[in-house]
């Protein structure tokens, strides 16, 4: 490669845990830096750049200002990668979309609720074209490295489509259902190597739904295992409120 790709990292509404996860590549950080020039990253440096080859974007869009900024990022970036559940699906921020907006504001502002404008929390793709996704909450490190190397090599990253169950079973984990818990693994997109079920916790669905999920089937499973229909729907919404918008069980 003649010139190292220029990389910029941006954050919108989110916990910045995904960015932090990038700083957490203690073992690979220097290798990563060898391949690219980081030209803008507010959380770690002062510089601001005019254009870049790859923009990594964290967080969801939740104010009019966010929409303005993301359009600018898109204009300057050749490739735009959404990092983490907030950017890819709207993430946990989307839970606020499931409450009537009036109620949310009242809960937060009390009497001052009409003072402030607010938008639903939206994925980056709601405003601009996203080229690739790194899913997870926080973003899955192994997937970030895969997408990153793919981009450095000039090939398209592959987005997994199978369920977390596949990875979980490949690891021969005891199914958490058999321990009396529930789990969203059957309809959640793999790629995390079943991170949570590997350590005995249920999958909360942070990587988003598989393509064409059988939601009615999933509801049956959750209800069979003791959740009310309402609770089942809430659990599914935790990371997928935007995708489930307008649907019901």
């Amino acid at each position, binding site marked *: 490669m003649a010139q190292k790709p220029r990389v910029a990292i941006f954050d919108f509404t989110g916990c910045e845990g995904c960015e932090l996860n990038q700083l957490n590549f203690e073992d*690979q950080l220097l*290798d*990563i830096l*060898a*391949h690219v020039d980081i030209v803008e990253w507010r959380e770690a440096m002062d510089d601001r750049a005019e254009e870049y080859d790859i923009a990594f974007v964290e967080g969801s869009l939740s104010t009019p200002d966010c929409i303005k900024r993301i359009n600018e990022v898109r204009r300057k970036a050749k490739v735009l990668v959404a990092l983490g559940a907030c950017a890819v699906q709207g993430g946990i921020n989307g839970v606020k979309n499931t409450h009537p907006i009036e109620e949310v504001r009242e809960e937060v502002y009390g009497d001052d609720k009409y003072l402030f404008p607010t938008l639903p929390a939206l994925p980056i793709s709601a405003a601009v074209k996203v080229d690739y996704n790194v899913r997870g909450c926080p973003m899955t490190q192994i997937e970030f*490295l*895969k997408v*990153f*190397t*793919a981009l*450095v*090599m000039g090939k398209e990253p*592959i987005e997994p*489509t*199978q*369920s977390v*169950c*596949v990875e979980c*079973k*490949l*690891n*021969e*984990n*005891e*199914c958490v*259902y*058999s*321990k009396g818990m529930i*789990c969203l*693994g*059957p*309809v959640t997109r793999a790629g995390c190597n079943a991170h949570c079920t590997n350590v*005995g916790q249920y999958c909360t669905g942070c990587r988003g739904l*598989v*393509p*064409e*999920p*059988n939601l*009615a*089937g*999933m509801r*049956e*499973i959750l209800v*069979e*295992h003791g959740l009310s229909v309402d609770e089942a729907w809430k659990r599914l919404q935790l990371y997928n409120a935007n995708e489930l918008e307008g649907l019901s069980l």
Partner: protein
Amino acid sequence: MVQFFLESDRIAEFVAHLKGHKPVFAPHLKGDKSYAFSLVEDPAGVVLDYNRTMHSVKKYFMPPREKLLTFDLTENSCEGGQVEPVNAIFLGVHSYDLAAVHRLDHNFAEGQAEKNYLTRRQGAVFIGVSYEPDQYHFSGSVGIDPQDTRGFDIFLTKLLDGYVLEVLTPEGEKLMQGLDLPAHETGKPARGHFQQHIYVPQTKLNTVMAAGYDNEIWEQTAKKCVGCGTCNVVCPTCYCFNVEENVDISATKGDRQRSWDGCMLRDFSAVAGGEVFREGLADRQRHRVFRKFKYLSDTTGKPWCVGCGRCTAYCTADISIVSIVNHLVADYEKTVVAPI
């Protein structure tokens, strides 16, 4: 045939003795109620009385993830994956799982024989153990008895206070050398009863399936099935795989890996251009069941399902392969006029 009595108290001693010959793999508790084969380190951890392990011993001959080759990108060159014979003792294998291994042997030896599987398969010695069928086992319906000793080198049949130990092959005899066990004279206990049955003789299954291609059961099942692929991954006779490239972060080297794949997964039959040859869950479910009871049996004469019940036991949507098959059987019988 020589039969010995292995007292419960001496199992640890027996396992320790085996470990003196070769590495021993046996079922262990994994999690609260789940079992898995793993390398025996402490003989006390071995569980011989278990319902089923999540994976069969297939994982030792065809690992869930396996390097097919490694490559060097700067040189643009590659090297084949290194495979070694497992050369180990598999202790506590249920009869249906060994039957499944024999089916896989066919898959990997037939046509173009595959080096990886067949090399790993070398040196495997099997010590079977009888089991009490639970609410999911139905291997009786596909001709595999819980005390079926076919293919085993040694077989253990459970008694109240121990096991009848049968030595079945010269390899088995070799393993027993140096272990002094009392002879067993009184014969073997009756085998356990199955709670699950397919209501048609296995020879007729092909015909039943052929008649059931358009049965409504596929659509009915598809309403419940979420396409998670668990039933494929846990099946001891599923052998399909996917191949993926991994490149290391330096972008100079990497490997090509295969991993278990499953026909219940949407992308399994997707090709470039967006065509998915088995688009619906109903089509995929039918393909899975037909792979077990028709397609391969058409050529080999044997069902490819060994009745372990894993796909049903681990299905979160509570889909039972026996119920599907029996539904087809019932509908088939409605259409044929009983002989007078």
